[in-house]
C-alpha cells in the first residue's frame, strides 16, 4: 500500500492516494498563485509586493486590494469550489460525465427562483437564497420525474435536462423582460453569470452555506465511494442508498443554488471541473476534493480572463466559462466517439 497515505485520529481515519495528495497540493498552489495575480489585476496593475503588504494592512492600496479585489477573488475561489462539488455529486449520481447541474437545467431553475424572489417577493438575501434553492430542487425533481421511465443513467436524462433547461431559460428571459426597468437591468447583467461588483456584505452568508455543505459532503463521501461500486454492493456493505441519494441531491442543489443566487448561472464549471480533477488524479470514480479544487482554479482563471480579454470592458465570467466549457464538452464527445469507433 505504498501509494496511499492514512491519517488516523481516534475512531476516524482518512485514506488518500499519494497522487491525489500531490495533485491537490499542486491545484492549491495554482489557486493561490492565481489569487495573487487576481489581486494585482484591476484598472491599474499593482505589483505583487504591494498586494501582500496591503493584505497585511500596510501601504496605499489597502482599500483597493482588501475591499474591492479580495471579495471578487474569494468569491471566484469559493464559488468555483462549490460548482465543482455540485458537478461531482451529480456526475456520481447519474454515472455520466454529462449529467452535471448546468447541463440538465438546475442552474436555470435556481435562476428562475432567484428572479421570482426579486420581482415578486422583494428580494431580501434570505428570500433569494431560499427561492433559488427551491427553484433548483423543482428543476431537479422535474428532470428526475420525466426521465424515471428510462432510468437515471444515460444520455436520455441529459437530453431531457437540456430540454428542461431550454424551457427554463425561455421563462427566465420572459420574466426579465416583464420586470420593471431597474430590476431588469440588474438581472440582465447577472443572467450571463458575473462576479462584477460583488462585495463582502453579500458574500458572508453564501460562504457560510458553502462551507457547511462542503462539510456535509465530506461526511457523505465514504458512502458515495461505496455507492459507485454498484447498488447491490453498496447496500450489502451497509450504505442506506435512498437516504444517501436524497442528502447528496440536497447538498448538490444547495451548492448550485447558493452560487446562482449571488452570481447568476455560471455554467460549465460544474461540467468540466470534476472530470479535470478525475483525469489529474487518475481516480476511478469522480472524487470530490480534486473537483472542488479544480473548480476553484477554473473559475478564478476564467474570471481573470474575463477581466483581461477585452480590457476596458469586463465580460461576464459566464461568457468565458460557456466558451471554454462548450469546447470541453465537444472534446469529450469526440473522445467518446473515437473510443466507440
Amino acid at each position: 500500500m505504498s501509494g496511499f497515505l492514512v491519517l488516523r485520529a481516534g475512531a476516524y481515519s482518512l485514506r488518500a492516494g499519494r497522487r491525489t495528495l500531490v495533485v491537490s497540493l499542486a491545484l492549491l498552489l495554482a489557486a493561490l498563485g492565481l489569487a495573487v495575480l487576481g489581486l494585482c489585476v484591476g484598472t491599474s496593475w499593482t505589483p505583487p509586493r504591494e498586494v501582500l503588504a496591503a493584505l497585511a494592512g500596510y501601504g496605499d492600496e489597502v482599500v483597493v486590494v482588501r475591499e474591492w479585489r479580495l471579495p471578487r477573488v474569494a468569491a471566484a475561489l469559493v464559488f468555483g469550489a462549490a460548482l465543482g462539488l455540485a458537478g461531482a455529486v451529480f456526475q456520481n449520481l447519474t454515472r455520466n460525465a454529462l449529467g452535471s447541474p448546468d447541463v440538465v437545467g438546475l442552474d436555470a431553475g435556481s435562476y428562475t427562483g432567484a428572479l421570482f424572489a426579486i420581482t415578486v417577493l422583494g428580494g431580501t438575501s434570505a428570500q433569494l437564497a431560499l427561492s433559488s434553492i427551491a427553484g433548483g430542487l423543482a428543476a431537479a425533481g422535474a428532470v428526475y420525474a420525466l426521465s424515471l421511465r428510462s432510468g437515471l443513467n444515460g444520455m436520455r436524462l441529459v437530453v431531457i435536462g437540456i430540454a428542461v433547461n431550454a424551457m427554463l431559460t425561455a421563462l427566465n428571459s420572459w420574466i426579465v423582460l416583464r420586470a420593471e426597468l431597474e430590476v431588469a437591468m440588474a438581472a440582465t447583467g447577472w443572467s450571463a453569470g458575473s462576479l462584477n461588483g460583488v462585495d463582502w456584505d453579500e458574500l458572508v452568508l453564501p460562504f457560510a452555506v458553502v462551507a457547511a455543505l462542503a462539510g456535509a459532503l465530506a461526511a457523505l463521501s465514504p458512502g458515495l465511494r461505496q455507492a459507485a461500486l454498484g447498488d447491490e454492493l453498496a447496500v450489502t456493505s451497509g450504505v442506506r442508498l435512498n437516504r444517501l441519494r436524497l442528502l447528496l441531491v440536497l447538498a448538490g442543489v444547495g451548492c448550485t443554488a447558493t452560487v446562482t443566487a449571488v452570481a447568476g448561472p455560471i455554467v460549465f464549471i460544474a461540467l468540466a471541473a470534476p472530470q479535470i480533477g478525475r483525469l489529474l488524479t487518475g481516480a476511478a470514480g469522480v472524487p470530490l476534493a480534486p473537483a472542488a479544487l479544480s473548480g476553484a482554479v477554473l473559475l478564478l482563471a476564467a474570471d481573470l480572463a474575463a477581466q483581461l480579454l477585452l480590457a476596458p470592458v469586463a465580460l461576464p465570467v459566464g461568457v468565458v466559462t460557456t466558451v471554454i466549457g462548450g469546447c470541453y464538452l465537444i472534446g469529450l464527445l469526440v473522445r467518446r466517439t473515437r473510443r466507440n469507433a
Partner: protein
Amino acid sequence: MKTDYRPVVLAASVVLLLAMAVASLCVGAQALAPAGVWRALTGSGGGDAYLIVREVRVPRTILGICVGAALGTAGTLVQTLTRNPLAEPGILGVTAGAGFAINVGGVLGLAGGQPAQLALASLGAVLAAVLVYALGSAAPLRLVLTGVALSAVLSGISLGLRLMLPDVFDRFRFWSVGSLAGQEQAPLALPAGTIAVALLCAALVTRPLNALMLGDEVARALGGHVLRTRVSVLVIVTLLAGAATAAAGPIAFLGLMVPHLARRVAGGSIPWLMAFTMVLGPVLLLASDIGARVLLPTGEVPVAVVTAFAGAPVLIWAVRRRGAVPA
C-alpha cells in the same frame, strides 16, 4: 381501404394559415379590427391604420410565413435525412453557426448588405452542419449534445464580440435573440426569394428522398442517386436555415415541432409530409409571433423565447417515447 383524409386536413391547414395571417395583421400594440385591416389593405382607408398595416404588419407577416416555412422544412429534411427524430437546425447548432458567421462578418466589416449577410449565414450554416454531423452522427442523442455544445460556444463568442463593439452591434441586438420585430423596414425580396427557390427545390427532392427512406441499397436498386440526393438535401437545408437566420436571427425548436406535428397527419409519405410542413411551419411561427406580441403588457418578447418554451416539451416527448430513439 380507408378514406384518405389528408387533402381535407391540408385544406383546413391552409384555412388556419390564412386565419393566422389575418390575426397577425390585427393583433399588436395597436389592435385593429379586421374591417379596418381590410380597408387599409385595399387602400381606401387613411391615417394610422393604413401605415401600421402596410408598413409594419404586412412585411412582418410575410417574413413570418417565409421563415416559418423555411425552418419547418429544414427540420423535416434534416430529420428525414438523418433518420433522427431529434434533429433540428436550431438544436444542431446550424442556426447558431449562421448567426456566428454574421457576427464575425460584422466585426470584419463584411456584413454590410443583405446579399453579404445571406452568403455569410449560409457559409456558417454549412460549416456548423458538417462539424456537428462529423462529431455526433454516431447516435441521435449524441448529435443533439454536440449541437448544443457547439451552439453554446458560438453564441458565447458572439456575445463577447457584441460586448466588445457595442456600436456595431446595436443593430444586431434584437436579431441576435431571434425576433421578427424590427425587421419590417428591411427589403423582403432577397430572403423571401431565396427561401421560395429553396422550398421549390425541397418539393422536387421529395421523390428521391422517399426512395432513400427505404434504405440506401433499395434506393440504389430503384434507380436513385443516393449521394446526389444527400448532397442536394444538405444544400437546401443550409440555404433555408441560412436565409431564415439572416432574416430573423436564430430561432430554435420550430424545426423540431413542425415535422412531429406534420408526421401525425401525413403518415409515412414524404411528399405529404413536406406539404404539411410548409403549411404548418408558418402557422406555428405566426402563432408564436402573435404570442410574442401579447405576452408582455409593454413591448414584445423575442419570438425565439416563445418557440423555445413551446418546443422544448416536444423534445422531451420525443426522447421519452419508448424505442423511438436508441441511446
